[in-house]
């Protein structure tokens, strides 16, 4: 009876709390959409300047071939080398293609003219990708004229054929949203009671500490798992496939939420005001976010950070969400992740229960 009353109260309060509801809605929708549209690491519209010292049909064809794909945007033809360098300095162009004079002549005479590409290396990734694109385009040119490389490489991309970043971003944003909801909701709920003073009132009643703990954590678990359904809409909107089992995904989401909830309760234990709790939550979640492969792959991180990431529940959840949606794998592949999530979840949840219990007199 006591627990039932508590749960009814918590659910009623949740449905009436506009701030948290709005926050959850925002995280799962607007944030995902914004990021998905904006955060492309795909190479598009790279500003390219062309110093065409030849100005022949062949040089123009070369430039056309490069800019046709949409990867490069032709920003202009600088008059001379000095002007070209200035453009790079200003950031007006990120790459400069220098076509030497008598380019067409040399080509026709099979005299291997020298092309030059100047890249703005300040963004290392785009520079490297730009270089690869140009190389590729030129190789196409070479193969068309029959003097191509001896080995033809046919690249097929699995799970994400058009290689857009969108699918990855959508899924990682959803994973992040689950983490944030899992952490913020119990923390906010507990700290709010501290602020209003009702937590004292609760302690004076026969309500057991364990009942209070469950009342603060179970609703979040339910909410987190149920939030998967609206996010499926977003997933469908962006054309992200769901190749694996939804049931498995829900189960593993539940396991993941155990860690998040545990963290949330621990945060609430040390904070007296909602503001402190949110501050701690945001800045505490930052490192977790980073070390879990949501922004950059773990494999690219230095060794010690990779080891650290083994403790992050989000890391395993990322594998789960990407695996189930994009690769369609099941428990036979994801069992290490499931185990890790269960283990870490039990750890955080257990610690939280202990600390919560300790705080009661």
């Amino acid at each position, binding site marked *: 009876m006591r627990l039932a009353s508590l749960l009814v109260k918590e659910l009623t309060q949740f449905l009436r709390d506009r701030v948290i509801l709005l926050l959850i809605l925002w995280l799962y929708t607007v944030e995902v959409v914004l990021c998905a549209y904006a955060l492309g690491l795909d190479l598009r519209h790279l500003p390219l300047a062309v110093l065409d010292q030849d100005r022949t049909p062949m040089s123009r064809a070369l430039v056309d071939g490069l800019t046709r794909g949409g990867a490069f945007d032709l920003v202009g033809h600088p008059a001379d080398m000095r002007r070209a360098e200035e453009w790079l300095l200003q950031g007006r162009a990120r790459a400069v293609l220098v076509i030497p004079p008598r380019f067409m002549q040399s080509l026709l005479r*099979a005299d291997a003219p020298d092309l030059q590409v100047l890249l703005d290396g300040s963004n290392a990734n785009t520079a490297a990708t730009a270089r690869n694109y140009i190389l590729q385009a030129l190789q196409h040119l070479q193969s068309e004229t029959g003097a191509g490389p001896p080995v033809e490489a046919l690249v097929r991309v699995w799970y*994400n054929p058009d290689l857009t970043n969108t699918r990855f971003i959508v899924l990682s944003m959803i994973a992040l949203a689950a983490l944030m909801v899992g952490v913020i909701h119990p923390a906010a709920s507990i700290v709010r009671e501290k602020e209003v003073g009702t937590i004292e009132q609760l302690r004076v009643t026969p309500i057991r500490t364990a009942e209070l703990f469950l009342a603060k954590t179970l609703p979040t678990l339910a909410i987190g798992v149920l939030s998967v359904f609206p996010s499926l809409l977003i997933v469908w909107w962006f054309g992200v496939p769901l190749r694996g089992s939804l049931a498995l995904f829900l189960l593993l989401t539940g396991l993941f939420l155990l860690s998040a909830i545990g963290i949330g309760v621990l945060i609430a234990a040390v904070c007296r005001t909602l503001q402190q709790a949110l501050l701690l939550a945001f800045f505490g979640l930052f490192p977790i976010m980073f070390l879990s492969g949501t922004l950059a792959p773990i494999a690219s991180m230095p060794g010690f950070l990779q080891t650290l990431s083994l403790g992050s529940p989000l890391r395993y959840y990322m594998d789960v969400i990407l695996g189930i949606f994009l690769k369609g794998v099941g428990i036979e592949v994801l069992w290490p992740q499931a185990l890790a999530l269960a283990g870490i979840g039990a750890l955080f949840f257990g610690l939280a229960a202990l600390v919560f219990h300790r705080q009661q007199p």
Partner: protein
Amino acid sequence: MNVRRVSAVVLKESREILRDPITVGVSLLMPLVMLFLFGYAISLDVRHAALGVWDGDATPASRELVEALTGNEYFRLTAHYGSLHDLEQSLQRSEADLVLVIPPGFAADLVRGARPEVQVLVDGTYSATALLVSGFARAIIAGYRQSGRPQLLHLETRVWYNPSLNSANYVVPGLYAVILLAFPPLLTALGIVREKETGTIQSIFASPLTAAEFITGKLVPYSLIAFLQMVMVIAVGYAWFGVPFEGSLPFLLAAGLIYVLCTVGIGLLVSTVTRTQLVAMLLALIVTLMPSFLFSGLLFPIFTMPELLQLYTNVFPGRYFVDISRGVALKGAGLEILGFEVALLALYTLAVFLLAVWRLKKKVA
């Protein structure tokens, strides 16, 4: 403006800040933590990508092709597959980042000059690395057994400003901008809203202190903290991460000062529209920090975004300072090149201030 009154506010605020060890600690520590995290964790450099091979030919030529790939630091060999099933499993389990499939008859075709086709299967889940990895693979395969053959043309690439293509050099200068968007607005906003919550602001209202004097007085200590944060981050970036410094330090510091005033001003503005510390914090974090982290060009180049969003990024002052700091650090650019951004930033700062002063009326409601 009465100097004595302004300095009274400056003195009081400074004392309050210094006597709050948590705030001081967080202000100094968090930027460093962020710097290290960003500097080390955000790297898209591809090294030792896991390469799986299904060699259907098993000839010296095919082995040579494999060695061409594994002989450099981009790839390392993880497995030779016995069957196609094993190959699929490997990709599914994310054990391989890419798989090279060499068909039988490879060497024979090569000798005949018949341009054999090899397949490169890439795990596209992490598209950023997939892109790079497939690009490298393609380039290496294209260069296989190329030496000595007649080239159609020569390509020389030169990389300017960051020849080693080091991620940290790219990320860290951008961080100077973002870190300053993280803490100063938050601290400043909280500093004022706290007075609203405890009621001390009513005493301020019911006194000769004008809104402009109050704002100026608040501004000085928080700007100083922010400036200190910036200097610290620049110093650590240079000394620890080895980020180059091609341009003029005084120029960067001067532009930095304007930027600092801007971010502090944003915090002030936020505080004039909120009543509680909670909302001030949410506003400061969600509306200023997170979007600027995403949209200032720190990690994700602005030119790849849709047009509309590119316009949207102009709202964030962080974007201008990212250009400025990258320009100074990596390109050695100075006022002639970056003058426009600096002027824009100064204008932005002025606008923010005027807005804040206008909004802060000495009335409780």
